[in-house]
């Protein structure tokens, strides 16, 4: 691992031997590199500050109760709102969670409790790959299997796409939090004559519960902000959804449509909707921190 060519070694020895002398150049280089590292940190944090600042500054003016409770209105008609988008996002993320939680948690339990099986290795690796997959590709997949066969864009298709995005996140966090449950707890339970399945359900899941909830919240946060797969599945709409089988609005979709429109009025509303979306993310992340705070063993990882 460590590079040990003779020439480099000589170089290192020469440099280090300077430590006994003045070593001024070395100290200057050290200071300069510290400066560069600090610059990198500043450059990394600046965009976050700028994004949050601009969204709050430009989003706040459109904020009002009617913005949250009204339906979108045509350009030029004041008083348009995002009620249907909020509702659509809520419905789709909700249904997606109903699909993704059982499968994700199940797979997570399998990865953590039967790690020695080959299926576990293969599936866990697949899960990692799936978690990093471009969400637009998942959108195409759901378009082909659902939208093409039902011949309509729908909330249902959107929910299925979001569930595929949530599943690997839930599986991974479930596995991690269950693996943190000490083996001795499992052994103690089984030594008392409790069967393995009861041990898993009562002891392992009971102990790792907060990690599980963290994972689900993380997945919900991710799904609530997804746009790309929804373009190909839910499409968006200006009406309130009356069934799961029709094009449905979602908050990120509305931000996208309004942002790329040429109308100042709609762009302003896009900032307002972005502020709401950021606020939702903030609340979800805050609850994640709270859940982690309760049990220190679950590491915070986004």
């Amino acid at each position, binding site marked *: 691992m460590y590079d040990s060519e003779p020439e480099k070694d000589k170089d290192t020895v020469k440099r*280090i031997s300077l430590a006994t002398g003045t070593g001024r150049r070395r100290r200057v280089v050290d200071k300069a590199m510290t400066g560069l590292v600090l610059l990198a940190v500043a450059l990394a944090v600046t965009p976050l500050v700028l994004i949050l600042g601009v969204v709050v500054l430009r989003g706040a003016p459109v904020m009002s109760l009617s913005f949250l409770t009204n339906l979108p209105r045509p350009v030029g008609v004041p008083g348009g709102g995002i009620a249907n988008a909020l509702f659509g996002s809520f419905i789709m993320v909700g249904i997606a969670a109903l699909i993704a939680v059982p499968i994700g948690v199940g797979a997570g339990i399998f990865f953590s409790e039967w790690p020695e099986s080959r299926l576990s290795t293969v599936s866990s690796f697949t899960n990692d790959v799936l978690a990093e997959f471009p969400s637009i*590709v998942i959108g195409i997949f759901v378009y082909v299997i659902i939208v093409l066969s039902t011949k309509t864009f729908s909330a249902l298709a959107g929910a299925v796409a979001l569930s595929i995005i949530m599943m690997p996140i839930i599986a991974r966090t479930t596995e991690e939090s269950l693996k943190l449950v000490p083996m001795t707890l499992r052994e103690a339970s089984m030594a008392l004559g409790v069967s393995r399945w009861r041990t898993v359900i009562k002891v392992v899941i009971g102990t790792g519960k907060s990690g599980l909830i963290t994972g689900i919240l993380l997945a919900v946060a991710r799904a609530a902000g997804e746009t790309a797969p929804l373009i190909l599945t839910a499409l968006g709409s200006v009406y309130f959804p009356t069934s799961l089988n029709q094009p449905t609005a979602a908050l990120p979709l509305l931000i996208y449509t309004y942002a790329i429109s040429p109308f100042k009025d709609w762009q302003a509303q896009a900032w307002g909707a972005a502020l709401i979306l950021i606020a939702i993310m903030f609340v979800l992340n805050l609850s994640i921190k709270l859940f982690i705070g309760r049990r220190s063993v679950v590491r915070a990882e986004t």
Partner: protein
Amino acid sequence: MHREALKGDIILKAVVAMAAVFIVCLLGSLALELFSGSNLSIAKFGLSFVIGRTWDPVHEIFGALPFIYGTLLTSAIALLIGLPISIGVAIFLTEKLKTKKGIAYVLGTLVELLAAVPSVIYGLWGLLFLSPILRDYVETPLHSYLSFVPLFSETPFGLDFFTAGIILAIMIIPTISAVSKDILNAVPNSQREAMYSLGATDWEVTQKSVLPYARSGIFGATILGLGRAVGETMAVTMVIGNAPRITADLFSGGYTLAAAIANEFTEASSPLYLSALIELGLILFFVALIINVFARFLLWRMMRGVRFRA
């Protein structure tokens, strides 16, 4: 009672194993459906789809090269800018702040928060805030003084490869720096202590004993970041200008694989057009698959058993 317990064990294992099987099947059927969906286009264009430079929906001539080029160019800009910053952040969090865990935690959380911002908000911010600023204060000066350089020859409009690359750089920083941080934390302290005992400065320790040890892991983190950049859709779609062009000019509008799918999918008027767009997805699928498998492999080898996430 014993038999009942045994039955319960078998049922539980079967149920959760089914979930694990489902995940494997999901990836498999993803590939299958993309293949069958792009059937028409594969049959018509064959290999020339990948090297074709023309994308003309009206005459139904489809070549994916401009999108592949745009994806590669924007990802390259993103890595060029994002990688040094990410490594700097990781070095800061692990090497500089070892004693003050509080500040490291706050700064680390702030950088991680970048990952929590939905990509459509990056797009909105990039389109309506960043792109005019880049156009007026970066692109126009570069163009007016350096227009003889082919990279800057076009009159900038702000919606181009350059802006898309900058946005992507911002988006991949949390990924690369979080994974690199884990990698640097995993470098044994004896590596550092040996150097310090020889009288080395902080930077010499980082440069000569920490970074060489972590090299392959950081490479894995970089590949993971590349995967993010290649697959990112919304933010890029909103700032790249959506023009299928192959040019070295950074201030020219461009297109990426993901952006083309997001932008044209619902407008696809003919089966062949739709099929060509699905084939773009198929290309993206394979690129993402190769990148992710490679990154995971590097990271798994670096820290056997310890898994990474961004």
